[in-house]
């Protein structure tokens, strides 16, 4: 005879507002996480609000002042055709951050859906779906990304799709694992017994359990996407000129390594580094905040 107190807590989440106090305190109190948030905020402001305060064109060339060092007119100098490096950094940041974020969101949505479906599907379908993921994971993404970006001339939308096309795989594996470990729970069985539809079960019963983990994975996806985009731009396969982007600026700067033009090499690299570090910090903070809660 099962006592009422022995029944597991129902897994239906009617509102997704987190009523437990642990998460917020863990997250907002962590110094490193706040540092990450501040750094990211600075980057976002720099890229999107900066041009309002520094309205110089990023794509205008000035052939009278090429390879100039920092000066009053060009606070971070110019590159080989006279672009204003500071303005380029700002506008480049816009596309990097946008593409990174959008690619992560697309990857997350698709990966979560795929993982959920694979988790609840019959074993045969599940093994085929996961085999596809394994095959796609067998080729390191950079090779596929390189190839796709040569084939399809990139625009912002295509870059997002290309980057998302390799990042969704990890998310789907994660979601599938979580789904499979939860779908055996009593309340899920009860829901199925009462005829609850599959979609409702997936989205309202299963998903809320691991949405925290998925969000953490998503945060790291943003970092990976920004890095991948910078890498592709570095190789010359990013957004087409004259759109500035950090990776492309770095590869241009490489041509002038021997001339000690530091303003062409350090600023773009530093921007990428700051973006990476801040997002990694936020991701780590999220992860500790969530883990602690579940203990």
């Amino acid at each position, binding site marked *: 005879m099962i006592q009422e107190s022995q029944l597991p807590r129902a897994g239906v989440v009617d509102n997704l507002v987190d009523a437990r106090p642990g998460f917020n305190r863990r997250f907002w109190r962590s110094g490193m996480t706040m540092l990450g948030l501040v750094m990211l905020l600075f980057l976002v402001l720099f890229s999107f609000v900066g041009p309002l305060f520094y309205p110089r064109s990023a794509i205008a060339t000035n052939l009278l002042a090429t390879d100039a060092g920092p000066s009053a007119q060009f606070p971070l100098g110019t590159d080989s055709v006279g672009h204003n490096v500071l303005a380029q950094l700002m506008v480049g940041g816009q596309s990097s951050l946008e593409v990174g974020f959008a690619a992560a969101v697309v990857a997350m949505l698709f990966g979560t859906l795929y993982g959920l479906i694979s988790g609840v599907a019959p074993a045969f379908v599940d093994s085929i779906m996961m085999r596809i993921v394994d095959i796609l994971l067998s*080729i390191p993404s950079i090779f596929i990304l*390189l*190839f796709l970006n040569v*084939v399809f001339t990139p625009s912002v939308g295509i870059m997002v799709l290309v980057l998302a096309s390799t990042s969704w795989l990890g998310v789907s594996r994660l979601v599938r694992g979580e789904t499979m470990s939860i779908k055996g729970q009593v309340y899920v069985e009860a829901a199925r017994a009462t005829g609850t539809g599959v979609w409702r079960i997936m989205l309202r019963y299963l998903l809320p359990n691991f949405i925290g983990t998925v969000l953490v994975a998503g945060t790291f996806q943003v*970092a990976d996407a920004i890095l991948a985009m910078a890498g592709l731009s570095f190789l010359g396969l990013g957004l087409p000129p004259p759109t500035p982007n950090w*990776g492309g600026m770095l590869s241009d*700067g490489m041509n002038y*390594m021997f001339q000690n033009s530091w303003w062409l090499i350090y600023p773009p690299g530093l921007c990428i*580094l700051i973006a990476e570090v801040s997002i990694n910090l936020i991701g780590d903070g999220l992860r500790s905040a969530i883990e602690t809660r579940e203990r």
Partner: protein
Amino acid sequence: MIKYIIRRLLEAIPTILGVTILSFVLIHIVPGSPVRILLGSHYTPYRAQLLSQSLGLNKPLAVQYFVWLGNLLHGNFGFSYTYNQPVVYLMLQALPHTIIIVVVAVLLAHLFAVFLGSVQAYFEDTKFDRIVTVVNYFFYSMPTFWLAVLLIIFFAIDLPWFPAGGIVNTQLTTPTFVDWARHLVLPIAALFLVSVAGWARYMRASMREALLQDYVRTARMKGASEFRVIFVHALRNSILPLVTLFGLSLPALLAGALFVEEVFNYPGMGLLYWDAVNARDFPVILGVTVFIGLVTVLGNLIADILYGMIDPRIQYA
């Protein structure tokens, strides 16, 4: 144990076949046919048709795939469009260079990461630990290509200790071992630094948990030296994540090697792939992709087998 290995091998075969299908499909979504590229300025419709017939390109796609797969299994990866040499030959030339830097970097990075992570975990929350964590974060988040460029600036330009690229000093009449080794240092350093940062984090977390266990207390009570406690007893249990990472790191490092080789103009597989992509040299692209896929599947297999050897419970999963 043998059954486990055989089972894993059999499971790997469909994956490898899938990789070949994927590569084949990828190549054929490229708009424009290779015939046009091959003929270049000598293009006439008649010649195009002749060439396409002789290359077997007018057969249905499925037939082309099986012909290509059959060739693959015989070791015939086709001819490069740009170099007009067998792809296998080009890959065999480039492969040793990549293998050297990747293998040396992986081994060094693992040794160093295990050591660093363990020491960090032992001195947890001290200044040393905090400083190393910050430095790790720094290297972990750094883009590989930027690190490579910085290494060139610091060690090849400002302090001319190492050459800035290539693999051989063209001014020397006879290649020497020392000269070759000097050319390898910076690429290996680039791969090493990025890998260590990531793995040391894992090792630190893993060792931290291991040091809290009861057997560590028992070993100390029995009078074992601290060194023995950490590096003999705790290490065996905490090294597991790094063992799996070892197998999984091979494909990741090949990817990193692509950037490093491009920056250093180092004639390895990464540079071969990059040049081929730029030149639309499809046989080379296909060959390298299939090869990389094979290496990845092999790496996963090695990781699984090593994991099964260390933790026998996995075999029955």
